[in-house]
């Protein structure tokens, strides 16, 4: 019984964090959103050099032989630091030994292929592309896509859940920083209970989301349960974060918006909460929810 990350796992997460911060991942994301994918591709290569896309490929197949817990560690950081590109597809759904940027559609969970303008579509024929509320994502229609097995889909759902936890953590951290400096009525707004109780609830929700995601990585609970709760927790972080920032949080210029829109996109990506609630119930009772 040791339900905590190992020192190696913590160090691995820190290495990804350091690399992304040194590369100014937020500026990279903004460039990506405006159509300049070159900095994003460069950062992708550096992260792929750490082994990210081959993380869960067994060692005898040339991968890193990492566990799903390692995958969760990596994706929480990718969410927190706003990674761009089809990481869920290239590192979780269909892990790539050579670090290639690939994408895929996997209906009904993910009927659109993400970032097909820069990534190789694994199967099917690409159709029209549409912008996402998350300006760093594009969504491409696909016909004739091959199906994935349940294990691959579950890895993608797990990675999405971990990314949501990371994004929620970032929004909370930025919100706490903001309410400590913003003053109204002569005091930091973070000293008012109306603000602090909302942020406390976000802290609590995220504190319970992480063990669920890790528990799903260990096979203790269905990944759908982790996705439901991580979505709820991250969404609470986003709603609360926007509210405590006030009007400045509602602007595209302020970086917070990047995470708010990312969270909104990931809540329904890789299976809506309603879909996953039904799946949890079916797993537990054998009765279709």
């Amino acid at each position, binding site marked *: 019984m040791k*339900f905590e990350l190992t020192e190696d796992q913590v160090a691995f997460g820190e290495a990804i964090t350091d690399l992304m911060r040194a590369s100014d991942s937020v500026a990279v994301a903004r460039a990506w959103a405006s159509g300049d994918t070159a900095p994003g591709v460069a950062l992708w290569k550096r992260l792929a050099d750490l082994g990210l896309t081959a993380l869960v490929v067994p060692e005898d197949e040339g991968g890193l032989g990492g566990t799903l817990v390692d995958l969760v560690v990596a994706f929480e950081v990718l969410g927190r630091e706003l990674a761009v590109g089809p990481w869920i597809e290239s590192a979780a759904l269909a892990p790539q030994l050579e670090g290639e940027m690939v994408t895929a559609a996997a209906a009904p969970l993910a009927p659109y292929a993400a970032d097909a303008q820069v990534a190789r579509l694994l199967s099917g024929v690409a159709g029209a592309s549409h912008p996402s509320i998350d300006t760093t994502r594009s969504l491409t229609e696909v016909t004739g896509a091959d199906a994935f097995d349940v294990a691959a889909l579950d890895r993608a759902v797990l990675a999405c859940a971990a990314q949501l936890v990371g994004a929620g953590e970032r929004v909370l951290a930025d919100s706490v920083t903001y309410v400590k400096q913003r003053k109204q009525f002569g005091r930091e707004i973070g000293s008012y209970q109306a603000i602090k109780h909302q942020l406390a609830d976000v802290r609590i929700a995220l504190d319970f989301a992480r063990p669920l995601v890790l528990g799903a990585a260990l096979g203790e609970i269905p990944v759908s*349960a982790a996705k439901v709760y991580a979505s709820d927790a991250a969404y609470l972080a986003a709603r609360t974060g926007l509210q405590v920032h006030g009007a400045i949080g509602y602007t595209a210029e302020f970086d917070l918006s990047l995470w708010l829109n990312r969270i909104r996109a990931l809540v329904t990506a890789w299976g809506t909460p309603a879909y996953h609630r039904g799946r949890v119930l079916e797993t537990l009772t054998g009765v279709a929810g």
Partner: protein
Amino acid sequence: MNLDLTPEELAFQAEVRAWLEANVPAEPLPSMDTAEGWALHQEWEAKLAAERLSVVSWPREVGGREASLVEWVIFEEEYYRAGAPGRVSQNGIFLLAPIIFDHGTPEQQARFLPSMATGEKIWAQAWSEPEAGSDLASLRSTAVRDDARGGWVLNGQKTWSSRATFAHWGFGLFRSDPTSEKHAGLTYYLFPLDAEGITVRPIAQLDGEAGFAEIFFDDVFVPDADVLGAVGAGWNVAMSTAGNERGLSLRSPGRFCAAADRLLELWKDRGADAPQVRDAVVDAWIGAQAYRLFTWGTVTRLADGGEMGAAGSVNKVFWSELDIAIHEAGLDLLGADAELLDTPWMDGYVFSLSGPIYAGTNEIQRNIVAERILGLPREPKGPAGKETAK
């Protein structure tokens, strides 16, 4: 990272499970807040104690079996899974005992702990006063020195004392220095509830049962031997174990997991008639799992020498709201039958409603999370109109 149990832990789990299967009463006991139910719950405690299962984590010489924290959580999981009776001795073994272990004299430990372990003596807390609830440090009940008799004389009133109607002993804080304010000048006293000068008046709870009571103190003498910790240090003594791992701040997940499993069974029976309740059922189950996994994380940290600290407040808000949500979902599934009195779901629901209030209201807990974990500025405190912003 793993959630595996050792062979010893698995053996302990099997032993506890087998014993509970053979011994848990087939029918639920009557409410412990009735005279009949009280006696039966005390008998059950004695039965547990005979197997050293009433206080598994305590030292052997006071009735325990020196179980590890992991084993304690295992015990609790098995206990609630088996549907075993509520613990009438809970306030003593979870709230008071850790303080006696840390601050009691050897004589006090020998005198109080064994009879607490067997359920022979049941303890009631006496914290709140009519004017001191969340602001507990504003309490007014007094303790005056009596050198001639070698002790203290208590006066005042305590309220919301769970189990005090039938309990044998009480514990609480009194102001022993009349010139002191707030947290200073308080002392921790232990007193038999049949002492001369004590009047216990039961209070009917939301469901009509006398689960808590007021306690009036009229020149009640307490000998020095029944002072817990140093005179004047009562606040620190009481709070030193407020985050205690075996206290309410680490409430075991067993109760919620068992309730969530019963909810799933109810869903199988009734879900077809109430499909709208689906999300609440799923969320209740996920919440219970979140609590279980979170607790294993906490246990790992504590076993490594970490401290509970303010994380206990995160815990308390979560389990108390989860408990209500589980029971609300159950009541929703029962439909029109939900309002029937004396069903397990209604009893559990009414009990759950007290969770966000006792052991520090959830508002106080959220303040602690915001100020001590998130580092937000303290809110100004002080009398209205005399705000003292820091």
